[in-house]
């Protein structure tokens, strides 16, 4: 029968020679091999200080977007919640009152917008479903916390910084400028 791969290797079943039966020479060779690994490149990425670059399509924690004037883009249409296969998104809509035009872009907005990060599978379907470019998946990941309740992210956790009052934060969240390295 034809072999499935070309990687088959004939096992040497000859009885061991005296040199092999003494073990010591082979042990010595093995020790040389392990010693050579002292000078090899380490595979470790020292995580909190070093991070590996993400691909541009990486899907991390969600952010809720603002437009250039700092108004929230979300109009609470609920398409993201419908698209979500894990049913992780909950929202409550509210009507924009007169005088709140600088806060919300459309007449309707999300008064409450919650994503359960323990349910979320980071598939990015919410991002694709959104007609208003309001929700994006960022490059932040691996949230850690002490309680299950705190994994339910609200608007406070997700809305990106205001572009006028906090220009730098906004640009950073948008990925326009490099994230500053955390000073250790």
């Amino acid at each position, binding site marked *: 029968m034809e072999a499935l791969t070309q990687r088959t290797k004939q096992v040497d079943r000859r009885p061991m020679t005296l040199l092999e039966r003494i073990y*010591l020479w082979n*042990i010595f060779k*093995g*020790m040389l*091999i*392990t*010693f050579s*690994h*002292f000078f*090899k*490149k*380490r*595979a*470790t990425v*020292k995580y909190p200080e070093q991070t590996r670059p993400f691909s541009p399509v990486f899907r991390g924690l969600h952010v809720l977007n603002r437009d250039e004037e700092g108004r929230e883009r979300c109009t609470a249409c609920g398409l993201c919640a419908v698209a979500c296969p894990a049913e992780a998104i909950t929202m409550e809509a509210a009507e924009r009152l007169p005088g709140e035009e600088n806060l919300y872009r459309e007449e309707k907005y999300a008064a409450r917008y919650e994503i359960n990060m323990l349910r979320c599978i980071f598939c990015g379907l919410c991002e694709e479903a959104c007609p208003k470019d309001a929700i994006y998946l960022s490059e932040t990941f691996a949230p850690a916390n002490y309680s299950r309740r705190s994994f339910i992210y609200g608007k406070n956790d997700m809305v990106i910084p205001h572009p006028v009052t906090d220009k730098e934060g906004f640009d950073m969240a948008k990925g326009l400028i490099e994230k500053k390295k955390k000073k250790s």
Partner: protein
Amino acid sequence: MEWEFILEKLLLITAVVTVSLVVAMYATYVERKFAGFIQDRYGPDRAGPFGLLQPLADGLKLFFKEEVIPSNSNKILFVLGPCLAMLTAMMTSAVIPWSSPIEVNGKTVPLQVADINIGILYVFGVVSVGVYGMMIGGWASNNKFSLMAALRGASQAISYELALGLSLIAVLMISGSLSLRVITEQQVTGMWNIVYQPLGFMIFLVCALAECNRAPFDLPEAESELNFGYHQEYSSMKLGFFLFAEYINMFISCALIATVYLGGYDMPFVDETTLSVSTAAIVGAAALFSKTFLLILLFMWIRWTLPRFRYDQLMNLGWKSLIPLALVNMLVTGAVILWTMKG
């Protein structure tokens, strides 16, 4: 006079015990670093600079762990097991001469806790008692896996002690004394014993690995594959004692190998008689410790290179290879000594 002697010995004991503890503590660190480097990793590097505080963190962790004594265990024996392991590990260091004697107030003080004329026999006696720590620990746990592991460990220790003793007899025939100080002094003036006894040295090294339960002979304590061995039921610092005793054992047996075969506190290419007494002592201690550390590194290197022996292979190697080899070595040594004495 009498209290001076007691004070001197007390100081020595404290120093030796402290040094063994510190060395054993940092041996764990070096071991993990070594393993890391061999496996293309960094090893512990989070606690303190280069992870130097890691042993302290490990010890602290063990102290804070919950202390579980199984309800069906024999409680006295359960506590006695790790104590015995630790005690015997420390006791062996008593007869090792750490350096040439120093002079304090015109009095010669040997840097050795007890220069007894049966030094090597004492070591063997204490090491044999060490097996009881293992046995008692495994037995008192009232757990069949622990018991099996303890039996495994005990039979391994007993088998390899034979070859260990036989390989040492050849050295004793050359030196004509059981006192470690005499053996060392002979090597300081003459050649190291490894020159006369290369085969004996190899056998002793292999047996020492087995006695310390280190890879490739670490069957008594294979963590995942054989259910963690005889200390399976132990937790907290009692487990720590078992693990720690092993590292002390390793340190002491490396010091013993260095003393018996590698010239003890003899610094190669340096004539100690030309130095002043205290300089010679410092140089001697440095020589012994560097030899010991190199041997410890060798032990670690072997551990992270070789896979574990199967149990039947272990027994075959011990009984069918090492003991006959040691016997032949002994016979040849005896014949050569007779031959040279005649001539």
